[in-house]
């Protein structure tokens, strides 16, 4: 210690140069001064140490008080919500599918003291649970197990009151479909974890999830709920009236390919998809393939007109049935004479259509049907897509029968899209369930000439004026269309006379088509009011007319009270009028 003092002394003494050199032991100052200097030095060191300590404490204070405030808000709930899912709306923004918050019940079996007692008490509130299953679940050593998903508020309150330890609720979202049955086949449904299983929900499963994560913009469908309701109501009434087993109804925008209404009956409540008949989940409009009969004559006529094989005044001899192999092709209401092209359609002559198809040839026919996409899988945004049933090999007899709609089974949506191309100027648009948000037309393929399309519009209009489509007439609207009544295949591979498929395919207003409508009634039974007939002219055509009369004003289509300018003025009865029209065509 003493040595220390001495050394300090020496250092302090050093600057005093004017003095004589001093020895290390020389004491120049008094003891009091020496002690005071020592003390000051100690305090200096101490002050620095304290300063440093205060700086550290101060810094920490600033960090604790000022910095922590900038931390984000704490999580509001310890249980994170599952992945979101965007809403689905119709073309006018009406909700077709959305999510509602619900509570789901889960258990932490590790924390459950008495599984038997807990199970008994839970079952008192949720009687639908299986006791053995529940006890087994609660007796495990797992950390998490679902007990019941999507409770009602009442159930949640009742279970909450029980206060069983190890039982808790998780907030979940449940997919709900406010429209119930109305759009069930279009929108489809999800499983309990909100993964799409059918319809739009399945096709756009990923898209709906990523939309929810991004801007939560709803998925806009092309469906118009009002049209959908009208089609479903009229179709259901027709099915009921004729005791049919089902049906399908479609309305397509001819200029975009948008499916404005798509109904398949029977249908189901999308909120409870697994209840009821599994058959009701079968989508007849997109998955079912059908021989739609005489509607195909329109395609045959367009094919023959486009190929230049026929014109508006040429025709075929339909006086005798065609015998080919072991089959006989005959007309339903034979005229037994030569028929012009318009007459073949108006009187729906199988013989005429078969001869016309034969004139084009199997190759030309296949090429044409491939062009209007009737030989490939249906393209529409649901997973339930039907594949046409195509004859193999494609013999001469097939060419003839397909000419009038037998032997080739296609889906209604496929047929409707092809029909739209026949009347819209010849452009085939892919049918879509998504709203087309542009004034420009979507990409389409010119499949027939504009002129052929004009002729087809005229021909289909004549069918509605004078042929089997008469019952689809609506005062004020000009409609074009074709009926098709096909016998369904029976179990032995032949055709069953009493099991019909009656369809109507139409377009309106036929002078400038906006919509194509297709209605199909599966196995209608004749009733006294229709004189026992269950053919399309008596079943599907009147229903289509009623639908057009209702949706026309909704779509803002002004009634036209004039006759098509291409037709001579109406004089005399229907036969005389038709004769005058045919004469006018022949003269042109």
């Amino acid at each position, binding site marked *: 210690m003493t040595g220390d003092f001495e050394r300090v002394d020496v250092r302090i003494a050093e600057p005093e140069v004017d003095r004589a050199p001093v020895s290390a032991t020389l004491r120049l100052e008094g003891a009091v001064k020496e002690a005071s200097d020592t003390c000051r030095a100690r305090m200096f060191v101490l002050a620095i140490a304290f300063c440093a300590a205060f700086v550290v404490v101060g810094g920490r204070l600033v960090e604790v*008080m000022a910095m922590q*405030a900038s931390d984000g*808000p704490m999580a*509001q709930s310890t249980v994170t919500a599952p992945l979101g899912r965007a809403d689905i709306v119709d073309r006018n923004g*009406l*909700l077709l599918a*959305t*999510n*509602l*918050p619900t509570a789901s019940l889960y258990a932490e079996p590790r924390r459950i003291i008495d599984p038997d007692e807990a199970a008994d008490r839970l079952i008192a509130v949720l009687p639908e649970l299986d006791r053995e299953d529940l006890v087994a679940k609660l007796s495990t050593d797992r950390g998490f197990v679902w007990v019941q998903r999507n409770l009602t508020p009442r159930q949640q309150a009742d279970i909450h009151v029980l206060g069983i330890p190890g039982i808790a609720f998780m907030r979940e979202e449940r997919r*709900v479909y*406010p*429209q*119930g049955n*109305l759009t069930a086949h279009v929108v489809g449904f999800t499983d309990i974890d909100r993964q799409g299983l059918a319809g739009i929900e399945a096709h756009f499963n990923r898209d709906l999830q990523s939309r929810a994560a991004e801007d939560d913009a709803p998925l806009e469908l092309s469906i118009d*709920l*009002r049209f*959908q*309701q009208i089609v479903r*109501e009229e179709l259901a009434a027709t099915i009921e009236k004729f005791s049919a087993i089902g049906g399908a109804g479609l309305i397509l925008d001819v200029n975009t390919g948008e499916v404005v209404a798509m109904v398949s009956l029977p249908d189901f409540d999308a909120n409870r998809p697994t209840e009821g008949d599994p058959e009701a989940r079968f989508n007849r409009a997109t998955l079912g393939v059908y021989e739609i009969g005489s509607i195909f004559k329109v395609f045959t006529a367009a094919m023959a007109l486009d190929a230049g094989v026929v014109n508006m005044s040429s025709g075929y001899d339909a006086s005798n049935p065609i015998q080919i192999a072991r089959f006989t092709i005959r007309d339903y209401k034979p005229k037994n004479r030569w028929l012009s092209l318009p007459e073949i359609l108006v009187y729906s002559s199988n013989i005429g259509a078969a001869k016309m198809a034969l004139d084009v040839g199997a190759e030309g026919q296949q090429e044409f049907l491939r062009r209007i996409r009737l030989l490939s899988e249906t393209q529409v945004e649901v997973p339930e897509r039907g594949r046409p049933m195509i004859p193999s090999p494609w013999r001469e007899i097939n060419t003839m029968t397909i000419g009038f709609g037998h032997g080739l089974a296609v889906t209604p949506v496929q047929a409707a899209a092809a029909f739209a191309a026949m009347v819209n100027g010849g452009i085939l648009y892919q049918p879509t369930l998504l709203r087309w948000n542009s004034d420009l037309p979507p990409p389409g393929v010119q499949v027939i000439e504009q002129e052929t399309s004009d002729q087809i519009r005229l021909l289909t209009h004549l069918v509605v004026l004078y042929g089997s489509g008469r019952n689809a007439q*609506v*005062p*004020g*609207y000009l409609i074009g269309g074709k009926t098709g009544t096909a016998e369904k295949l029976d179990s032995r591979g032949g055709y069953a006379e009493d099991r019909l498929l009656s369809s109507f395919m139409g377009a309106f207003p036929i002078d400038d088509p906006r919509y194509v409508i297709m209605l199909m009634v599966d196995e209608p039974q004749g009733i006294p009011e229709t004189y026992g007939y269950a053919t399309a002219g008596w079943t599907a055509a009147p229903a289509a007319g009623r639908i057009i*009369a*209702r949706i*026309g*004003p*909704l779509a803002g*289509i*002004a*009634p036209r009270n004039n006759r098509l300018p291409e037709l001579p003025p109406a004089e005399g009865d229907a036969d005389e009028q038709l004769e005058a029209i045919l004469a006018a065509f022949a003269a042109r």
Partner: protein
Amino acid sequence: MMTRSGLIWCVLALAAAVAAFTVKYQVRDLEDTLAATQSAIADSREEIHVLKAEWSYLNRPERLAELAGRYLELSPMAPAQMGSLIDVPLREVPLLDPLDGEETGTLVTFKVEQP
């Protein structure tokens, strides 16, 4: 000297501490308000969502048709009920000067019956 500056520093430090804590508590209160508001917004959003779903459910076309049939003396519009303004016949009405009642011109207007 030393005591005076020390005193000033002491007062300053105290003032700074008081200010810092005041601000801190204000910030905390604001954060609480923010959190409460945010959760209120989330609740409202959820409520709106639920109400929208309910609105859609109550506005099902099927139900509206049934209610309209029961309570309204209206029926769906028929094509014949649509027309255009061009079809409306016009009529001529003499225009009178409001002061002296002298005819100043003719107004061509829709044929609307005077009540």
